C-alpha cells in the first residue's frame, strides 16, 4: 500500500499520464513498437529521479502496446508483434463500422489483462520466478507442438490451401542465419537477410500491402459511402460476448510472459484459437470480425507484459525487447534488478507496481473516449485510406533500419499476399508459420543438444509430458467421439474441414 502513496503524488500521477499519452502517440506511429518507444523516450526521463522515471516508463509501456493495437485494428498494420493477432478480427470489425467497438474491446482487454497480470505479479512473483527457471527447451518445444496442432483450426475452408499458406510462412521463417550453428539459410549471400525477416514486416506486408493491392484489383467503384462509424459504445450483446475472453486471456498470457523466451506472439495466437474453439454461436464470424478475437488476444498481450516484469524484477532477466530496454534503464540509475531488488529498493519496486495499476486505469480512462474519434479516421475517402495505409506501411518498414531493402522485401511479400487472396490461401497460417517455425526449431535442437543427441531429451520433464498428453487427447478425442457415436451427423467443425 505504501506503493500507492508513492505513486499517487500529483507529480507521479502527472508523469504516469504523460507516459500513457506519449506511449500511445508513439505506439501508433508505424514501425515503432513499445521497445522502440521506451528506448526513444529514455532521454526524456534522464532528468527525473528513479521512481518518477519508472512510473513514466510503466505508462509508456502500456501506452505503446495499446498504440500498436490501434493501428492493427484500424489500418491492418500491426505496430508490434503482440498486436498482429488483433488485426485478424479487429480490422474486419473496423471495416464494418465497428471500429469503436473493436478499440473499446482492445482497451478494456488491455485493462483487464493488465490488472489481472499485475495482481498476479504482486501475489505470485517469487513463486512464479522460482518455477520459471525450471521451464526449459523440452517444455518450450512441447508447447510449440501444441500450438502447431492448434493451427489446424485456423486453416480455413480448404485444408490443402491452409497448409500451403503455413508452409509459405515456415519458408519465410527459415530465412537468416541458423541460430544454433551460424549457417546461412536462404539468405543468398545478402547481409540484409542474415537476421531473418521481422514478423511485423511480414504481417504488415501480407495484411496491409496485400490487401491494398487486392482491393485495387477489384475496387468497388459504385459505392462512395464512407465506412460508417456506428455506435460508439459496446452494446449489451458485445459485452456478453467479450467478458469471458477478457478474463480468460490473462491466464494464457501471464505464464508465457513470466517464463524466459515466452514472449507475447505465441500466447496471443493460442488465445485466439482458444476463443475460436470455445465460441459455439459465433465461430463462423472469426476472421470476419468476431469481437472475441480482439478481446481475448489483447487481454493476453497485456497480461503477458505484466508477466515479463516478473522475471525482470525478480531475476534481472529480460524476456522481451521492452524488458531489455527497461533493464538498461535500471542500470543507468545504478539499480541492478535481481533477487535482492525487492529488499534493496522496496519503495521503488512497490511504487512501480502501484504505477502499473494507475497507468492501466489512466490508459482506459484516456483511450475509451478516444475510441470513437480514432474510428472516425476510417471515414476518409477510400483512395486516401488505402494510400495512407501504404504510406504508413512504407514509413514503418523504412524507419527501423533506414534501408530500401526492407521496402522491397515488404513489396515482394505484399504481392504474395495479393496472390494468396486471389486463390483463397488464408493469410493467418502464414503468419503463424513465421512466428512458430523458428522458435520450434530452435527449442527442439536446443533440447536435443542439452541431452547430447538423446531423443529422450524431448520428453524428459514432467511439464513436457503433461503437454504431450494434452496433445494426444486433442488428437484422439474426435476419433473416440466418432467411434462412440458413429451415427451422429458430422458437426459443423468437421464439415468445414472438408477440402
Amino acid at each position, binding site marked *: 500500500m505504501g506503493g500507492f502513496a508513492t505513486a499517487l503524488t500529483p507529480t507521479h500521477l502527472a508523469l504516469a499520464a504523460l507516459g500513457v499519452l506519449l506511449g500511445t502517440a508513439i505506439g501508433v506511429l508505424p514501425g515503432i513498437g513499445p*521497445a*522502440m518507444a521506451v*528506448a*526513444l523516450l*529514455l*532521454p526524456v526521463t*534522464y532528468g527525473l529521479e528513479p521512481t518518477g522515471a519508472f512510473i513514466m516508463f510503466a505508462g509508456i509501456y502500456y501506452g505503446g502496446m495499446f498504440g500498436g493495437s490501434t493501428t492493427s485494428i484500424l489500418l491492418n498494420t500491426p505496430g508490434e508483434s503482440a498486436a498482429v493477432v488483433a488485426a485478424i478480427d479487429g480490422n474486419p470489425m473496423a471495416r464494418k463500422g465497428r471500429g469503436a467497438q473493436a478499440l473499446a474491446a482492445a482497451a478494456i482487454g488491455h485493462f483487464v489483462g493488465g490488472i489481472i497480470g499485475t495482481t498476479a505479479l504482486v501475489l505470485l512473483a517469487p513463486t512464479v520466478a522460482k518455477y*520459471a*527457471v*525450471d*521451464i*526449459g*527447451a523440452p517444455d518450450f518445444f512441447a508447447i510449440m507442438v501444441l500450438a502447431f496442432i492448434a493451427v489446424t483450426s485456423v486453416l480455413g475452408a480448404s485444408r490443402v490451401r491452409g497448409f500451403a499458406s503455413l508452409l509459405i510462412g515456415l519458408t519465410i521463417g527459415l530465412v537468416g*542465419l541458423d*541460430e*544454433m*550453428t*551460424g549457417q*546461412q539459410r536462404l539468405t543468398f*549471400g545478402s*547481409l*540484409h537477410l*542474415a*537476421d531473418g525477416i521481422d514478423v511485423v514486416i511480414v504481417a504488415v506486408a501480407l495484411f496491409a500491402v496485400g490487401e491494398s493491392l487486392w482491393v485495387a484489383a477489384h475496387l468497388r467503384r459504385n459505392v462512395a459511402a464512407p465506412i460508417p462509424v456506428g455506435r460508439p459504445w459496446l452494446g449489451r450483446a458485445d459485452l456478453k460476448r467479450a467478458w469471458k475472453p477478457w478474463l480468460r486471456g490473462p491466464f494464457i498470457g501471464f505464464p508465457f510472459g513470466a517464463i*524466459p*523466451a515466452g514472449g507475447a506472439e505465441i500466447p496471443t495466437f493460442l488465445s485466439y484459437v482458444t476463443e475460436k474453439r470455445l465460441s459455439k454461436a459465433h465461430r463462423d464470424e472469426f476472421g470476419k470480425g468476431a469481437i472475441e478475437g480482439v478481446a481475448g488476444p489483447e487481454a493476453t498481450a497485456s497480461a503477458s507484459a505484466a508477466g515479463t516484469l516478473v*522475471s525482470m524484477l525478480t*531475476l*534481472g*532477466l*529480460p*524476456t522481451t*525487447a521492452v*524488458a*531489455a*530496454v527497461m*533493464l*538498461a534503464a535500471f*542500470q*543507468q540509475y*545504478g539499480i*541492478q*534488478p*535481481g*533477487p*535482492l*531488488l525487492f529488499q534493496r529498493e522496496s519503495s521503488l519496486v512497490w511504487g512501480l507496481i502501484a504505477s502499473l495499476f494507475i497507468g492501466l486505469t489512466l490508459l482506459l480512462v484516456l483511450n475509451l473516449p478516444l475510441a470513437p474519434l480514432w474510428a472516425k479516421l476510417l471515414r476518409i475517402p477510400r483512395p486516401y485510406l488505402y494510400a495512407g495505409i501504404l504510406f504508413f506501411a512504407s514509413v514503418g518498414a523504412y524507419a527501423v*533500419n*533506414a*534501408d530500401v531493402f526492407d521496402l522491397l522485401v515488404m513489396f515482394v511479400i505484399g504481392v504474395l499476399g495479393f496472390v494468396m487472396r486471389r486463390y483463397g490461401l488464408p493469410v493467418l497460417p502464414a503468419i503463424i508459420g513465421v512466428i512458430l517455425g523458428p522458435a520450434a526449431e530452435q527449442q527442439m535442437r*536446443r533440447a536435443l*543438444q*542439452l541431452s*547430447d*543427441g538423446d531423443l529422450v531429451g524431448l520428453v524428459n520433464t514432467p511439464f513436457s509430458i503433461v503437454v504431450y498428453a494434452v496433445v494426444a487427447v486433442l488428437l484422439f478425442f474426435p476419433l473416440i467421439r466418432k467411434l462412440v457415436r458413429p451415427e451422429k451427423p458430422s458437426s459443423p467443425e468437421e464439415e468445414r474441414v472438408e477440402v
Partner: protein
Amino acid sequence: MGNWLAAGAALVAVVVVPPLLTPGGDSGATGQLRGLRVLVPNAPGGGYDITARTAAKAMEDADLLRNAEVFNLPGAGGTVGLGRTVAERGNGKLIMSMGLGVVGSVYTNKAPSSLLDTTPVAKLIEEPDIVVVGAESPYRTLAELVAAWKADPGAVPVGGGSSPGGPDHLAPMLMAKAVGIEPRTVNYIPFDGGGELLASVLGGKVAFGVSGIGEYRDQIEAGTLRVLAVTSADRIPGVDAPTLGESGVDVKFSNWRGIVAPPGISDVDRDRLVGLFTTLHKTAQWQEAVRRNGWTDAFAPGEEFGTFLEEENTRVATVLKDLGLA
C-alpha cells in the same frame, strides 16, 4: 492553373520545409564539435547502444559537444552497420560504436567489409566474461568442471549469450583449446542474450554458462549463482573468483567495446575524434558512468587501438577457422 499552383506548392513544401525546420550543420564557430552522428550497429538496449548513448550523454554533460545524434542500424551481428560505416568513406562526422562481437560476425556472416577497413578511434571499455554455474551445481571449482568436461565434452553442455562467433562462444572455445579439448566437440548452446542464458544456468539446464558479468551481479551477491572463474587477466573487484590463469587454464579473454570511424577521413578529422574521446575518458562524468555500469576502463586511443584490433581479428579468425566457421 490552380492544379499547377497546388502541385508546385506541394513540391516546394516537401523540398524546402524539412531542411528549414531541422537544426544542425556547422553554424556555431565555438570549440564544440557539432553534428556528430553515432551509428549503433545493434538494437536499442544492446551493449553497443548503451555504450554509445552513455558516451554521448557524458560528452554533452561535460560540454564537449552538442547535438550528437545516436541512431541504430541493427542487422547481421553489426555487419550491416559496419558496411554502412565503410561506405561513408571520408565522412569525418560519423562514428560507430562496436566491439568484439562485430569481429566474429564479419566471419560468420561472410561480410564483405572488415573492421580493418575502418579508422580506429578508441577502445573504451572491457567487460570480462565469467564462468558461472547455479548454486546447486556439482562443480565447486574450475578444476572439477574441467575434469568432467575433458572426460565427456558432449555431456557437459555450455551455454553462452551470443550466437556462434560472438564473445560468449569464443571464450569457451579458447578454454577448450587450452585444456586440450578439440573445439569441435564442445557442446555449445547459444542463447538469445545473457538474460535468457541466466534462466538456463539457474535452472541447471546447462552444465555451465559463459557470459558477461552485467546481468549476473545481483544473483551472484544473492548466492544463487557461483562464479568458478573470471576470464580477464586480473581478478574483478567484488567477485570472489580466481582468474582462468590461476586455475591452470591459460586463457586471457575480455569482451571489449570501442569506437571506429569510416575509412579515408582526413588526419584533422581523425585527430579531432581521437582527441574528443581522450578528453571524454578524463571527464568525471565518464568515469562515473563506467563505474555505475560495472565496466572496466580499458582506454586505448587511435594507433594503439588499431594494433589491438588487428591482433583480435587474427585471434578470432584462428578460432573460427578451427571450427570451420571462417
